[in-house]
């Protein structure tokens, strides 16, 4: 009953003082809209993702290259009373050039928890299947959906937390502005018995009513916006009741928490303190500054001085309002960066060749055998199976080859439809061969690596990487900026190419022609023991335990904007690579980047082609990274629009703070302007005073916004560069102030700063006594003169 009474009283109070609460309503509406957007999108994205995955893969596990025994064992597996998997389909493919067949089987776990189904399979069937021979096991994104779901939930929770914190800060700012303005009221209430509990109950009821009032419009707008966002990427949309309810609950919490702290701080003060605080004293650092006003001309210098007088208020206002404009910029920048990461070329397939190839074997490959040898499935139960290939052909008798990646293989792979680029790699980790590079003193920045006794920095997080013209072509394909000449490195073994640093951070101060030293030999002088995985720590231990001999190399090229993880490459030609690592330049790792607009048919055909190639080259293992699917799922979520929506909401807070704060501030200064009028100031002078305030705020806000925008986007770039590589998204962001968001933020800031001063002037003049403004007299004169004209 008491709650209902409070709510009813709060409702009346809000309706009566709607102007005072309008700002809170708008803010709570925005906060609730944000919460609802995140939650509704989260729930819709999850269900859409699941739908997409189920449509694409109706199985969790694919077992490839099974032999007859393995295949039939799984097909006829006795699962007991409660089965935990079912075989969705199977394919049979003839191994090129042989009479043998290989089988693929597609399994769907039918337990409520997919993971437990997989574990049961692992425990019961895997050991038997493994015993029967080699095969390959691939878990599909449908299986990893649940772990992805956990990650999505975490990100959603993190986003909600961010909105929660931002919301609390905004409501706290607004509420403290209001509490500050209505201290007298609180003082009177407390004089006559109001306790913290009472005040909070009242304030909370008001916030609850405001949140409830904002509920319908915010949910409506959110659901409509989400509908269009999802429709933009051809996704389906469902109304999620739980998200709607949760967003309301979160909004109420955001409203309650800051009010709790504000009321707590008010209730700690004595009523007298609050009753007496109705002047501007709480806004001024030192009222004594005002003593100089008589020396100044009104409004010019005097109003500038007034801005100085109220500098505590001004700084608070500009800092809080401008930070939201800067947050808008950051959010927009994040959105742009995020969409950039989706456009990064990722290898859809990774192929690994074992390196026991011989040139003779290669020569034996006479005719570039027909890889499209077809496949088919048959047998007693073929009604539940699909064919591996519709174009069935008779198996040919062909030898198998133990092979590695060569130019011929590359050219052959390029004949497959859908292949855009083949990326080959041959590298040796320095740490594996107890090697490292050493930079001369002054050529390394602080942090990272370990310093030897001569003050030279040594790094063992190096990948000695072979460079030939094809690798150079790959570097050019990615468009990395190269300083120096890579050809020199390819042609002259005394030269190497290096990156700017690692971890996407600039670590070296090298220039072309500088010398670097590679440890090519070592003598142990004491035992080296370490338990850490940290490169720098291990390097330090090794430097103490070994004496190294170094070979000098010249920096022939520096690769500037290449994304680099924790390990960085040092490129060298084949001979140098062999000399440094002791290994031949064999390209055992090959990534295949596919066309971005590849059709499903071409994709399937490419996979078939690669599988046939793998049949042919027995030491070739293909890994499908499923990036196409994963990126498509990400794109379906349309996060760029979500970021932009959040950014727009953050930006809208800025004018809200400007106007709310300034209107209340000038209300307090009304009597001051009345006095100016009383002592002879004209309307135009008063107007000028407000305009001066507006201009000063505008300039101040623009400068602060620009500084904040530069600093925050710089920090964001550093953060993204340092964090994204660890999230295995090898992207490097170059810092640049995002022009359009910056200009929008600047425009909104300047306009808000100026008009939040000018609008109170218009309100003041409207409600000012006509004896000061002469408004009504002017009007009368106008009518009389019109009348006279008529006569």
């Amino acid at each position, binding site marked *: 009953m008491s709650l209902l009474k409070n709510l009813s009283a709060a409702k009346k109070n809000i309706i*009566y003082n709607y102007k005072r609460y309008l700002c809170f309503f708008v803010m709570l509406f925005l906060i609730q809209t944000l919460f609802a957007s995140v939650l509704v999108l989260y729930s819709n994205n999850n269900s859409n993702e699941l739908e997409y995955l189920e449509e694409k893969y109706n199985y969790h596990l694919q077992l490839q290259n099974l032999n007859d025994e393995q295949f039939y064992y799984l097909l006829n597996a006795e699962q007991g009373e409660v089965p935990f998997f079912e075989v969705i389909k199977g394919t049979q493919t003839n191994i090129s050039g042989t009479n043998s067949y290989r089988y693929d089987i597609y399994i769907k776990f039918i337990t409520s928890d997919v993971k437990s189904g997989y574990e049961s399979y692992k425990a019961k069937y895997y050991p038997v299947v493994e015993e029967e021979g080699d095969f390959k096991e691939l878990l599909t994104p449908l299986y990893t959906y649940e772990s992805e779901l956990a990650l999505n939930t975490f990100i959603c929770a993190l986003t909600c937390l961010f909105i929660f914190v931002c919301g609390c800060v905004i409501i706290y700012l607004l509420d403290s502005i209001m509490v500050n303005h209505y201290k*007298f009221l609180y003082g009177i209430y407390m004089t006559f018995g109001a306790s913290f509990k009472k005040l909070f109950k009242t304030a909370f009821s008001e916030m609850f009513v405001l949140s409830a009032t904002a509920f319908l419009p915010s949910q409506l707008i959110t659901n409509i916006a989400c509908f269009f966002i999802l429709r933009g990427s051809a996704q389906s949309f469902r109304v999620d009741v739980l998200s709607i309810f949760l967003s309301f609950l979160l909004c109420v919490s955001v409203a309650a928490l800051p009010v709790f702290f504000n009321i707590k701080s008010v*209730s700690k003060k004595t009523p*007298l303190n609050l*009753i007496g605080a109705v002047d501007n004293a709480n806004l001024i650092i030192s009222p004594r500054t005002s003593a100089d006003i008589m020396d100044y001309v009104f409004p010019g210098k005097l109003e500038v001085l007034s801005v100085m007088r109220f500098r505590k208020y001004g700084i608070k206002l500009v800092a809080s309002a401008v930070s939201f404009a800067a947050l808008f910029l950051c959010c927009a920048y994040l959105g742009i960066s995020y969409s950039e990461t989706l456009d990064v070329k990722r290898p859809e397939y990774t192929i690994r060749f074992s390196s026991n190839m011989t040139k003779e074997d290669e020569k034996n490959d006479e005719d570039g055998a027909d890889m499209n040898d077809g496949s088919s499935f048959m047998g007693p139960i073929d009604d539940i199976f699909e064919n591996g290939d519709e174009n069935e052909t008779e198996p040919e008798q062909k030898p198998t080859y133990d092979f590695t990646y060569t130019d011929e293989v590359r050219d052959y792979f390029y004949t497959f439809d859908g292949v855009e680029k083949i990326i080959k790699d041959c590298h040796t980790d320095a740490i594996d061969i107890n090697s490292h590079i050493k930079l001369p003193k002054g050529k390394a920045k602080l942090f990272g690596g370990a310093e030897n006794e001569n003050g030279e920095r040594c790094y063992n997080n190096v990948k000695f990487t072979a460079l030939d013209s094809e690798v150079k072509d790959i570097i050019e394909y990615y468009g990395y900026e190269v300083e120096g000449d890579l050809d020199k490195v390819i042609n002259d073994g005394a030269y190497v190419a290096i990156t700017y640093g690692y971890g996407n951070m600039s670590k070296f101060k090298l220039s072309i022609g500088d010398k670097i030293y590679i440890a090519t030999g070592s003598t142990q002088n004491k035992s080296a023991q370490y338990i850490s995985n940290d490169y720098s720590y291990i390097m330090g231990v090794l430097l103490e335990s070994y004496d190294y001999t170094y070979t000098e190399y010249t920096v022939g090229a520096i690769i500037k904007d290449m994304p680099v993880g924790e390990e960085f490459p040092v490129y060298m030609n084949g001979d140098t690579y062999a000399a440094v690592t002791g290994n031949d330049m064999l390209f055992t790792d090959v990534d295949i980047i596919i066309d971005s607009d590849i059709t499903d048919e071409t994709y399937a055909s490419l996979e078939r082609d690669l599988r046939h190639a793998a049949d042919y080259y027995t030491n070739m293992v293909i890994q499908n990274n499923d990036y196409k699917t994963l990126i498509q799922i990400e794109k379906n979520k349309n996060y760029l629009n979500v970021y932009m929506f959040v950014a727009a909401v953050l930006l809208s807070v800025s004018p809200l703070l400007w106007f709310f704060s300034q209107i209340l501030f000038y209300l307090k200064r009304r009597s001051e302007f009345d006095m100016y009028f009383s002592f002879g100031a004209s309307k135009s002078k008063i107007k000028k005073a407000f305009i001066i305030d507006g201009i000063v705020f505008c300039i101040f806000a623009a400068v602060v916004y620009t500084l904040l925008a530069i600093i925050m986007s710089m920090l964001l770039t550093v953060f993204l560069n340092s964090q994204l590589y660890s999230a295995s998204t090898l992207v490097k962001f170059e810092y640049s102030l995002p022009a359009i968001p910056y200009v929008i933020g600047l425009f909104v800031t300047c306009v808000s700063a100026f008009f939040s001063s000018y609008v109170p002037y218009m309100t003041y003049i409207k409600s000012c006594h006509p004896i000061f403004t002469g408004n009504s007299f002017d009007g009368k004169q106008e009518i009389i003169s019109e009348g006279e004209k008529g006569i």
Partner: protein
Amino acid sequence: MAKYMLEANDIIRQFKQYDSVVTAVDRCSLKVEDGEFVAIIGASGSGKSTLLHILAGLDRPQSGSVYIRGTNITAMSPDNLGVFRGNYLGIVFQKHNLIPQLTALENILVPTVMCDKKDHTFQEHLKKLILALQIGNRLSHLPSELSGGQQQRVAIARALINRPQVLFADEPTGNLDRRNADEVLSLLLELKTMIGQTLIMVTHDMSIADKADKIYMMDNGKLFLYKDKQGYYKTSYELEMKAALESERAKPLE
């Protein structure tokens, strides 16, 4: 049951003004019996309003204690003190301090709302107050639509609506003309008798103070008994004051 309705011991209240410390209330003590009318007189700036605010629990002293009906209000938490003030104390300010956006009636009812009083507990009392204060035809008016005297009557009604045991009045007639001041004072005394409460009033008007059971005089932060029920103590006051003013002032406290 406490012997005194109000007992204040060694109250010190100081304010920091720029680099110096002003002692507004300097080791003041007083005792007020149940139903007494006590006036505190003194020149402007002598510290009498500050003392009254401390006695009414509107401000906190740096040192000393205030007991009301045996309860130490200086040791109370702000919340408990708020509830205590609402239920047991009434305050009338010199500047009325009515809430401008509330009507006269709403202003009067503020303490009942703050203390969650049920309607039936104060309806009768409200009628009596309205009748006694003659503000029945002004109840729906905003404070800005009332005269100074009417505003002060509304403020008195507000202070008395919860039937407080002690009523504090800070120069309640200070902003009124003589006729209005006399009216308000006689109303206050009438209501005091009607409700049977203790009245502590700050005034600089000797003609009003004369009506009190006890008069305390405040000078430069020090408090002296000027008159009690037996009569005036001018001689002893002068001696006491001389001695007190010559004594050491309270040192700045933390």
